[in-house]
């Protein structure tokens, strides 16, 4: 069953101040992502793709408008509430994995679970299950530096789903990987979407990666310029 994690951006504007000038990223952007969607967002560098992920994940603030996830408006939550909400509802997958280098794969996956009341044994069970899902059950004790790029990204995905969030935000998750590793990562994301009902929003430059998504949006200069439905069952 998919929980109500419909994501809505309504008339969202985002601008940055750079010295005395104001740089607009979006102006009155609207986006509606139903629960359980697998959305790919493409576009040139600087078009605002990653900013959309940041706004949905509550790691950046909108200038105006409204961001709603399910029934909750997240744009006016305090930092502390946003942190708690993010820990429960959102998982992030980064292009360069961003694993903590001094922790093993298992410890990286366990990291977000420190925020829960689970016992150490419960946490370890969960970590083992998740590492099994991403195919790294034998690599838990390895440091990130001892893993290949593809394996590190799997650890990144495992960490992102450790808290069992409904939303996965992936910022160019295959951007640093070879073709084979990229396909393995995309396969995992596809399984998480189709079999576990996760809502996935993936920013990518790779057209072939979009074939794993249910639909793709093209962003340019802060506006969605072309919408296309993808060929995913």
């Amino acid at each position, binding site marked *: 069953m998919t929980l109500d994690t419909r994501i809505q951006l309504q008339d969202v504007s985002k601008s940055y101040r750079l010295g005395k000038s104001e740089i607009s990223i979006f102006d009155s952007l609207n986006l509606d992502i139903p629960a359980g969607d697998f959305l790919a967002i493409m576009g040139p560098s600087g078009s605002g793709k990653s900013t959309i992920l*940041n706004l949905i*994940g509550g*790691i950046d603030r909108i200038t105006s408008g409204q961001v709603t996830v399910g029934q909750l408006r997240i744009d006016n939550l305090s930092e502390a509430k946003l942190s*708690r909400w*993010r820990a429960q509802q959102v998982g992030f997958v980064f292009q360069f994995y961003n694993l903590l280098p*001094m922790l093993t794969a298992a*410890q990286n996956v366990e990291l977000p679970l*420190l925020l829960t009341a689970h016992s150490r044994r419960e946490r370890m069970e969960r970590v083992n299950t998740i590492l099994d899902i991403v195919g790294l059950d034998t690599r838990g004790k390895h440091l990130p530096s001892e893993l290949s790029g593809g394996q590190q990204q799997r650890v990144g995905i495992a960490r992102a789903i450790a808290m069992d969030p409904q939303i996965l935000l992936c910022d160019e998750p295959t951007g640093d990987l070879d073709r084979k590793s990229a396909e393995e990562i995309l396969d995992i994301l596809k399984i998480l979407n189709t079999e576990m009902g996760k809502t996935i929003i993936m920013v990518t430059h790779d057209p072939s990666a979009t074939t794993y998504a249910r639909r793709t949006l093209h962003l340019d200069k802060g506006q969605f310029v072309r919408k296309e439905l993808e060929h995913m069952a």
Partner: protein
Amino acid sequence: MSYGLLIGKNLTRKMLRSFLLILCVAIAFFIYSVLSSFQKSFEGAEATVERLVVTNKIGSNEALPISYWNKIRQVEGVESVTHISRLRAYYMNEFNVIGANAVDIPSFYEMFANTYSFDEHMVAAMTQKRNGALVGRTLAVKEGWQLGQKITLTSFRHFNQDGTQNWSFEIAGIFDGLEANVDTAFLITNYDYFNEALVRGKDVVSIYGVRPHDPQMIDSVAKRIDQVFANSGSETRSQSEVAFMKAFMNQFADVELIVRAIVSAAFITILMIVANTMIFAIRERLLEIGVLKVLGFSGFVIMLTIMAETLLIFALGALGGVGLTALLMPILSELLSSIVPGISLSAITVVQALGLAVIMSFLTGFLPAFKALRLPIATALKHS
């Protein structure tokens, strides 16, 4: 995995840097604990604010009449009084100066029973042997003196009835300090024996020791004593033992000021080194701080982990420094026995060192931790 492990992993990610930091802190605390022990021993660890020392107002080298003894006992608020007269003597050669005092044994025993391990057998022995002497353990060990041994001291100032400056005593007891850092490098002998044998300068004492009924009233008792002898031939100056010892030692050097200056220089240097290193260490970790925030860790929790990391650095350093001091204290005690006999690392120095470690860790950790608290996630993630 736990927060403790996370803090430990952060600390050990650059082992050499962390080791050098902890070493720096350890050296600073080693300097602190050695100098602090030196200062405490130099100023007399047995000194207390609960007892008064009454000296001649002109200076502690000037004598006071023995007749003051009864008068001080009658001052309101005084519980007991004893008197001490310095022999100013050496043993064997004039470079081997001995701390020797002629005292009234019963009142001295009563006054200092909670400082030295005197017992009634020693008092009885001294009563029986008029030329008896009770010797502190440090002095006895240093000179190799035994119980019952006869010793002859030569006074720089006091002539004996036989026309010499030699004073012979028989060791009637050896006492210890009730605490490790109490100075026992001196001996006491019977005042009556000493006074009767003096050619001149009879019936005077060097100082009086006074214990008030109520330690809280020590200042008012001091004032009353000084008022009694105001405008007399020998006016008095009454002050606490601690104040007396400080003033006495300051005649040679302001040890406290020297110690504070050295320790401050060491700690300010360490403060800057650790704060600077922590700021750089946190700057290297901006991306990770951003990732932790993305995962749902609040800025406050991240701030606490950074402060805990600096606390760990200072705790390990302080324990290392204090531990090294404790380890080397027997050697230091031996080396410094002629300057500060009985130097030791007191519990209060250890507690003060640990308290300083907590304060220093806060001072060095707060700024980088606060920066981490305020760091916007989007900004942190740009450091990838």
